[in-house]
């Protein structure tokens, strides 16, 4: 059983985002990046499945020139193999990424392909269903609780809906899943181990071509004026607490007056 996990880097939202001078992209010069949160969950699910089924885990990332740390972290956490896919100046759109991964997966065996259900920058849709359509494979998004059948021919997955409803599906393999969350929090890999692996790791590489783009034309990007909504309360902690308490009391809430 071969599990493949697709991962990518996204801008770290802890830092302030700015728009580039042309108004159509982020100002990328000073951005820092981290692994897309949902891709981390996909990797953790794959490693959990490896532990119970003996499957191998291969991690793929599009080669944007800076994915060594991401891939070394995958190895440090327990992935068997890492592969850089293609060569890109920067992270491409989701359609291009899906085509590139589809091309790579013609050479890499995969019974189950896992990736994050979404990423914060997937303007043109999510990679999992795009990739599945490109490969002609079944796919399920917003997935939790992946189980593999003993014969390795099917998986059972839960798909989440609003209101806490969950559908259980049986899926023929090979298939592509967009992972919402993992059963355990993503495991920790010691930084020293990652640093060491960055020097010694055997990064596989697959050359691919992926053309066509997303078919979207970006006209403008802007930062919404978030403070336009809330009236901001400033001051010390005590002053903030006093103001909030007043706002609440004004509405007859608290002190037994709320129900």
């Amino acid at each position, binding site marked *: 059983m071969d599990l493949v996990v697709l991962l990518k880097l996204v801008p770290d*939202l802890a830092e302030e985002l700015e728009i580039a001078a042309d108004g159509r992209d982020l100002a990328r010069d000073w951005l820092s990046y981290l692994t897309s949160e949902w891709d981390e969950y996909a990797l953790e699910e794959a490693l959990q499945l490896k532990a119970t089924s003996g499957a191998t885990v291969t991690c793929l990332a599009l080669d944007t020139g800076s994915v060594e740390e991401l891939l070394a972290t995958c190895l440090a956490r327990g992935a068997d193999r890492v592969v850089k896919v293609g060569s890109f100046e920067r992270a491409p759109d*989701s359609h291009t990424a*899906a085509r590139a991964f589809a091309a790579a997966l013609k050479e890499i065996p995969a019974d189950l392909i896992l990736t994050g*259900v*979404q990423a914060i*920058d*997937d303007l*043109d*849709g*999510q990679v*999992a*269903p*795009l990739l599945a*359509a490109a490969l002609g494979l*079944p*796919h*399920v*998004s*917003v997935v939790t609780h992946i189980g593999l059948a003993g014969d390795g021919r099917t998986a*059972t997955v*839960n798909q*989440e*809906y*609003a*209101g*806490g409803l*969950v559908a*259980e*599906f049986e899926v023929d393999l090979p*298939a592509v899943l*967009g992972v919402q*969350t993992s059963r355990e929090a993503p495991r920790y890999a010691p930084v020293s181990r990652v640093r060491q692996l960055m020097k010694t790791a055997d990064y596989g590489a697959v050359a691919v071509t992926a053309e066509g*783009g*997303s*078919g*979207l*034309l970006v*006209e403008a*990007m*802007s*930062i*919404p004026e*978030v403070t*336009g*909504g*809330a*009236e*901001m*309360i*400033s001051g010390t*902690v005590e002053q*903030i*607490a006093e*103001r*909030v*308490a007043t*706002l609440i009391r004004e509405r007859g*809430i608290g002190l037994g007056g*709320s*129900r």
Partner: protein
Amino acid sequence: MSNDVFVLVEHRDGAVADATFELLGRARQLAVAAGGEAVALLLGSGVEALSSKLGAAQRVLLAEDAGLAEFTPSAYQSVLVPIVQERAPLLVLATNTGVGMDVAAGLSMACGLALAAYATDVALDDGGPVITTQLYAGKVNVRVRFRDGRGIATVVAGAFPAEAGQLAGSPIVERVTVSALDGRIRFRRLLRPEAGDVDITRESVLVSVGRGIGEADNIALVEALAAALGGAVSSSRPIADAGWLPRTRQVGKSGLRVKPRLYLALGISGAPEHLEGMRGADLIIAINTDARAPIFGVAHYGAVADLLDVVPALTKRMTG
């Protein structure tokens, strides 16, 4: 090719999802402006009666088959791809849900149509559809067009008023022949949430916590505040994922939609998925250490502070 605007109908237990009505209302306006029809795509088994609820559409394309009794991505895909390829609508709208994501991206790749995800507005001008979407957890707005002038958008819940789509009526019902369905994904069962100790949709005061709570031990702090306010504790997704609170307390897209008199958002950044579930609250007060957190865009009042400092001070005042 047509100037029709298609809407994929999401339904369950004989009821059409609110988010679908939101799209239908908008689709009607867009179709009128474009000189086409608003067309509802209704897939299922024994669901024809639902078409009377879809009066905002001029036409319902009805695909019925035992294999469509429950949603599966593969069966829906095998019905929808030929419809969209043959009829080439101006726009296909789907909700930004598990169903919508599965269907929209699959259609996009299979039909060669561009897709704009996380749309918060869909409009038309002389150049065709213009989509506004939100990226980076709601921190950036992007305005896009389709290179080929037509395409697909997945729309976040709450983007348009549902009322405009909740029109009774008798749209033309056109049955679509269902050929072989792709059966590689099989529905097994629906798991409904277990009733929790607290029904957060019925509480008038919610003290809601996100990642800013830091660690599980701090939940007790917000429980004390909730008790002082006569309310209950709810959470954003990461807190339920971590198991610090039961899933029944989760507010948002994959949790519950709430509309309390007071919603205290503590250490919640306000990802679009969360805002979907609480933006209708009467009074929203947000406390967050990040001054740029999108939660401040929907809150009525906000303070940039650490909830671990503010909550004890507030609890003291409310119990005082």
